[in-house]
Every structure is written in structure tokens, then in C-alpha cells.
């Protein structure tokens, strides 16, 4: 079983990201589970969501304390909450930032990867909603979920032009991230 924890702020699509990853993994033929941990439901408050992906049915429902993968949607959370808490040493941390990994002061043994998903979102969507781009980068960096399934999940969730644009953001981030 692989466990993913996503950190972001209310309004950034933290919960949607987890749901899209679970839907895409399910489309890939895996069992999956996604659930949020809301703080107080308001824009800007730190929020965590969780994803589990497995080859067998998933029964465990506790929060994820030792994620294989960590996705940080908002780098300003570093220092506000302990984002890297419990990340597996052989795991991976993916951060949305324009900075290089070594410039981030993250306390984690795990490999750290960065991508400027906000810029991709601004370029493609014209709005700083970067969650779909970030999961595109996740697909490439980890190889856990196919980019086709993610794009399919994105287009199902957001019908019409918004879905197509978001799928474009997914692909662009996927192409920019090194495998």
C-alpha cells in the first residue's frame, strides 16, 4: 500500500486533489481511498487530505502519519504546520514553489522535488489554482498513477473547457517534471 498526504490551504483544492488521485488510481485498476481532514472550514486555513492506493481492498481509516509521498501545495505552510512530519526516508516530497529543492528548508530525509505549479496554472488557466498541475507533476515524479487516468478524472470532474484546460495543466506539469 502507498500512502500520500497533501498539505494546502482551504480553497486551494487540497480535498479535490486527493479525490482526483484516488479516482485516477481506481481507473488504473487499483483499490484507492481518499479523505480529508478539515480544520475549520474557511478559506486559507491549513488543510490536510489523505490518499491510500493498494492492490487489495483498503480497510484502514486512520490518518496518514508516515506517508510514502507528500504533496505541499503551499510552501508558506512550512513552519506553520509540520508538513514533513513522518515522511518515509525512502519517500518523496513534492513542493509547489519556484525555488530549487535545496533552497527549501525542509527537514526530511526523503527526496525533495519542486515544481512551479502556480506559474503553470497562471499560464494555462489564468488563475492561480494549481492543484491539477501539481498532481500531473506527481504522476511523473512517482510513476504511481498514469497521467491519462489523471487527465480523465480531471475532465470528468470539471466538464467542458475548464476540464480541458485543467487537463492541459496536468500534461504541462507532467512534461516539465523529470521522471
Amino acid at each position, binding site marked *: 500500500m502507498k500512502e500520500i498526504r497533501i498539505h494546502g490551504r482551504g480553497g486551494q483544492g487540497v480535498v479535490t486533489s486527493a479525490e482526483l488521485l484516488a479516482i485516477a488510481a481506481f481507473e488504473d485498476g487499483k483499490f*484507492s481511498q481518499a479523505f480529508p481532514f478539515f480544520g475549520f472550514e474557511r478559506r486559507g486555513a491549513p488543510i490536510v487530505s489523505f490518499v491510500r492506493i493498494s492492490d487489495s481492498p483498503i480497510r484502514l481509516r486512520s490518518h496518514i502519519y508516515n506517508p510514502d509521498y507528500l504533496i505541499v501545495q503551499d510552501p508558506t505552510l512550512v513552519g506553520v504546520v509540520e508538513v514533513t512530519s513522518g515522511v518515509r526516508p525512502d519517500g518523496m516530497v513534492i513542493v509547489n514553489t519556484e525555488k530549487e529543492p535545496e533552497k527549501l528548508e525542509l527537514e526530511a530525509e526523503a527526496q525533495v522535488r519542486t515544481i512551479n505549479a502556480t506559474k503553470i496554472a497562471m499560464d494555462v488557466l489564468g488563475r492561480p489554482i494549481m492543484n491539477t498541475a501539481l498532481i500531473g507533476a506527481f504522476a511523473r515524479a512517482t510513476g504511481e498513477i498514469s497521467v491519462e487516468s489523471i487527465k480523465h478524472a480531471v475532465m470528468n470532474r470539471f466538464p467542458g473547457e475548464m476540464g480541458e484546460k485543467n487537463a492541459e495543466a496536468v500534461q504541462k506539469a507532467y512534461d516539465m517534471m523529470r521522471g
Partner: protein
Amino acid sequence: MKIMEGSHAVAEAVKACRPHVISAYPITPQTHIVEEISRMVADGELACEYIRVESEHSAMSVCVGASATGARTYTATTSQGMALMHEVLFNAAGLRLPIVMTAVNRALSAPINIWDDQQDAISQRDTGWIQLHAEDSQEASDMIIQAYRIAEDHDVLLPVMIGMDGFILTHVYEPVELCPQEKVDEFLPLYEPTQYLTPKNPLTFGPIVDPSMYMEFRYMIHEAMGRAKKKIMNVASEFRDKFGRYYGGLIDTYEAEDAEVLILAMGSVIGTIKDAIDELRADGKKVGLVKVRCYRPFPAEAILEAAKDAKAIAVLDKNISLGHEGALYTDVKSVLYNKGPLALGFILGLGGRDITKSTIENIVAKAQKAIESGRVEEESEFVDLDQEVL
């Protein structure tokens, strides 16, 4: 199989049961259920009367009125909303109306808290409602279909609430199998009320009953609760034959046969306990589970049968009867009085406090210690309390 949110899986099951009247008031974390149902009604996918109201007290009152006319009715609520319904819940049961409700589980104020525990449903224990508790989205969805069969049975005629842990199940995306409409139609025939309100045949529902007969009516409800036990088991078996899924009757067990330590719990924590048991078993520890599916009527005989050969039983309560102990623990002890294993009570998971595999392992270790010493040192204790802030 499809992957969808737990709340939507419930809404789909409600739709498949073809209710005539739905009335609800939105409240976190029940909101996604009624939001999806109202969308279905607005989009013409579900032909039913969706009545918006100004409170949960009104929502249940609408259900009572509608059900008295012979309509199949549904509602959902949680926490403070369920508390506000309290008065009307007694009426629904006393009038013998087969209303089905999803009781999304959430803590009660104060302090205000939107997260999961089961205090809300447990506090409705004595209203005369049958109370079931679901382990996962699939069961929360399937139980809706089972609940109408149980509630509308002429030997029962009681309302049913289905406990579904807030956020943990209402907001989880996981794979579920939806029941095909034609099979649901075969499984769940139209509701045939024994008596119903119609201008053609005027009746009085809810007249005053004096001391010479009130007790007899209460006795009749109590008897119907007793008959419901068999019905709940039968419906679970029939559901298995029709849809291929089975979650146990009044209770279910997991690795319980040769278990020295049994864990007894209900709701969404069951999955985490099963994973913990697999690990403990791999370590050579004889641990098993009793899952309580049906809290009222209380499955005394089934629990006694499952627990009689165990050395200790650890009862997990996501509620507390303040000033005493967890409600399940009290019930289990009354069942085991003078027989069976040592019983330990644990209060945990209140207001959304996470329950992990190591929480379960610590509880099992305490039960094993009780077995070694032959006695229970602390009957009821709070798990994972932060002593620093007290």
C-alpha cells in the same frame, strides 16, 4: 464497481428505494447526502417530494406526517440537528412509522466540534428507533435498502436510523457497488401501510392515552423491537442472496473463534481494528473482533454467544454517559453478568480524535494484562488523553 464519495453512495441507495417524501435540513457533515438528493430531485432523476424546512425538528415532523399518509420517507441529520429532533423521534417510533434516517455521527457542543463520534446517535438510544451502524460506504449505502425492508415489515413497523461516521465515511472516496434499480425493486416492494391517513377514511394519529393503557403501548413497541432482531438477520441474509454482499446479522465477527482477547466496537473503526488484528495475529496473539451492526435492539444473545469462550473483551465507545462509562460497555457488561470473559471499557475517538492501529494494540495489551492478573484494574478509561493540558 465505481469510486465515489460515501455520501453519494448513500444518496444513490435512497434514490433506488423510490421514497415519496424527503425532508431534511443541511448540517455538516451530513450536507453532501441531502445536497446530492436535492440535485437528483431538481434534475428529475428522482420523482419525490423534497420538502425544505427551517429546522431538523420540522424535518422529522414532516417525515412523521408524510409517513402517516403511507408515504415512504427519508431524512438525514447529525449532532445538534439530531438533538433538535429528539422530541419528534419518540413520536415517530410511538406512532409506529417506518421512517428511515441516516444518522451521520458527529460530536455534540459545547465546545462546538464538527468531527466524528457517536454521542449523537447513542443519545437517541431510548427513542424507540432501531439503530444500525455501518462499517464502510458500501454498508452505509446497502443498509438503506435493508432498513426499509426491516422498518416496513408488519411485524416491526418501527423507524430505523443508520449510523454513518461523519467525514470518515461521509467524505471518503472509495470503491462501491451500487445496487441495480430492477434488483432493488424486486427486493423492496412498495410500502403497504396497515393504516394511513386519507380524507376517504379519517383516522386520528396520536390521541392521548391514559395510565390505564400507556404501558401496554410501550410494551407493544418493546415487543416489536424484539421481533426486529430476527427480521434484521433475515433481511441481511436475503440481501446476500440477492446482491452478494453480507456484513453479518445483528453482529459480525472477525477472527473471533479462538480469540482470547475480543475487541467489541461499531462503525468506521472496524476496518482499522481488522488491520490491527491481522498484525497481532501475525505476532501470535489470539485477538478477534465483534462488530456491533445493530445497537438497538441490543443483540445480547449474539454477543454472549460470540464472547463466551474469550478470556477478555475490550469494549470501544466513541461516546460517554458522563458520570458513568461508555454506553456500549454498560450494555456488554449487563449481557456478561456472572458469566464469560473479563470486560474492559475504553472511551476513545471523541470529537474526531484519530484512532490508529497502535491505539488498538495498546488496548489489546491492557486486555492481556487483565487476563494475566485475572482482574480488571480500571473498568472504564479514556484512551490517548493529553494529560499536559489538563
